């Protein structure tokens, strides 16, 4: 009996391990390539980190640096050159500004909306909610062109506003928070009203703290989507490199006069991905805490 159980568990684990490998492999390649030299990458040799021989890098010399500056170990070169070639910190900062602004405004809009839809009785509430559901069905790409035209007419192309404004109302956020608020007991809101809170105070002081787990889930969706978004920034940021978000920045390494150099490119991708992974790991821990935190009933 016990042996059978182990075999059953073994199968499950084997399948999960295969799945994990499939998911992790691109990340392994990315990290590995960001450490190795161009020759090792092209000949697919050198294992995870390559031989790390000190060498002079021709692309670097062609770009106009002295031969002395261009002589170093591959991992140093990849990361150094990535930061030299493109203002990656600037791109990262743009990414932070854009994703945080979007998330904060989304919360400012979605929480009162969700509260009204979940807990207030007003004429037309069901209609408004059905419109929210309807908006969930509209793909972003379908309305991209009209949005672009409107932003262009307003003279907002090539500004932060163009990156932020179209995403400030998240119907998904409204829907998610509304579903969560439905589970908050009405008595809690009544108690807050008896204590003298106004409706806005209830949203921010009672509903928000109880909704932390749902809000974190939403934060993960929102931040990941807008940090990784390539489509929209590519449309509205046409010339100004100072406004590039990280995915646009990576594009700097593609093609060009000197053929593709994968090392620095992968180094830049690692730099762009790491903040997201770290943020996700932190949020995930809080996320699980959050679920156990709710002591409502």
């Amino acid at each position, binding site marked *: 009996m016990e042996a059978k159980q182990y075999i059953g568990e073994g199968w499950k684990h084997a399948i999960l391990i295969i799945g994990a490998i499939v998911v992790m492999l691109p990340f392994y390649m990315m990290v590995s390539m960001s450490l190795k030299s161009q020759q090792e990458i092209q000949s697919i040799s050198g294992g995870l980190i390559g031989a790390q021989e000190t060498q002079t890098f021709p692309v670097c010399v062609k770009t106009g640096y002295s031969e002395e500056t261009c002589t170093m170990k591959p991992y140093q070169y990849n990361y150094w050159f990535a930061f030299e070639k493109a203002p990656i910190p600037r791109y990262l900062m743009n990414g932070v500004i854009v994703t945080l602004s979007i998330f904060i405004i989304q919360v400012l809009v979605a929480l009162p909306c969700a509260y009204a839809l979940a807990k207030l009785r007003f004429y037309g509430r069901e209609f408004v909610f059905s419109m929210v559901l309807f908006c969930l069905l509209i793909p972003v790409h379908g309305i991209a062109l009209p949005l672009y035209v409107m932003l262009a007419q307003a003279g907002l192309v090539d500004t932060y506003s163009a990156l932020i404004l179209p995403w400030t109302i998240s119907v998904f956020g409204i829907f998610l928070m509304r579903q969560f608020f439905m589970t908050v*007991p009405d*008595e*809690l809101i*009544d*108690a*807050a*009203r*008896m*204590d*003298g*809170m106004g409706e806005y105070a209830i949203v921010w002081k*009672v509903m928000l*703290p*109880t909704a*932390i787990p749902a809000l974190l889930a939403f934060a993960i969706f929102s931040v990941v989507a807008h940090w990784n978004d390539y489509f929209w920034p590519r449309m509205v940021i046409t010339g100004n490199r100072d406004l590039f978000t990280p995915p646009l920045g990576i594009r700097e390494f593609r093609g060009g006069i000197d053929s593709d150099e994968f090392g620095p490119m992968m180094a830049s991708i690692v730099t762009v991905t790491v903040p997201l992974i770290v943020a996700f790991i932190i949020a995930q821990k809080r996320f699980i805490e959050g679920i156990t*935190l*709710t*002591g*409502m*009933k």
Partner: protein
Amino acid sequence: MGTISLKNISKSFGSTQVLNNLNVDINDGEFLTLVGPSGCGKSTLLRIIAGLEQQTSGDVLIDNKNVNRVRASERDLAMVFQSYALYPHLTVRRNLETPLRLRDYNGFERLPLIGNFSPSKKEKTESINQLVNKTSETLKISELLDRKPGQLSGGQRQRVALGRAMVREPVAFLMDEPLSNLDAALRVHMRSELSELHNSLKTTFVYVTHDQAEALTMSSRMAVMIDGNLLQLDTPQEVYDNPSSLSVAQFVGSPKINIFKGTADSSGTISFLNVNLKRKSSESNTDLHIGIRPEHLEITNERNENTFSGTVAYRENLGSDIFFHVNIEDGSNKIIVRGLPQFTHQISNGSSVNIKRVSDKALLFNQAGMRVQFTNA
């Protein structure tokens, strides 16, 4: 002062009428219980008093001031909820402070950090702390002040919810089935504590419950509501002894009152089963319901024209009393009879017994369920 008057209160949700033209006057310092089966509109009435719900028509007066247009928070009432409704993310201390902070601090002082620069805030914080400490000592929850509601037991949460209502020293307390989430033993204990609390605070309590035992034990007056109507408003003893209608008689009292079908002849003589009552009905020539409470029936060895007999179907032993569920011989009724253990312990399921009534205790109701009086003659 804490008088509350409800004048012609009606409430309907859509086409469903929930409250039907209610008039209640609640005196200062009174413990008034609104009692009725679930769905009778008692909670809605409480919410209308609180200002959480708007009545369809009628007036609510608190201390003789019409408060129809006054918001819940400005009516100076405090409410204790069934689920306690404590803020789950705040400590007990902050839970108790919240109503005071909202009342005493102005908008600027409530701001985080910069609010502390207000010169009057320190003094207010001091008085809030004192009130919180005083209340938590009264309720014996001082050692819980730094915990979160999730870490408290049901009884402790109950106390904290009471505390949150008490700190503000409101003109009246509204309680919506506050004991129904507690286990049976704690519920009985909290009853006496609530009564003591009421005696020491001398504030008006309006208490909603579906449990007639809570209503009977705690209240100075109880209002029995059924289907949105106020059927009777009187002291618990009076409601028990002298119910105004069949529904009230059936609702109040546990086990339930026994109802016999009987008739009054042209002279008003009342008969049911094989028994004639000595007293006469004021309504003659009619069918009647005769109500007799279980404690007004006795199991006896006698067998005469004043007794009737049946078989014990089920014996419910509560230790201090034994209740016998008896099938009457003619098959018309199943009734409940109280027996004292020392006399009836040998009676088992299936035995046949004779039942005698205690005289002068029967209650008469007509076909419409309204009370019928005996003639004085």
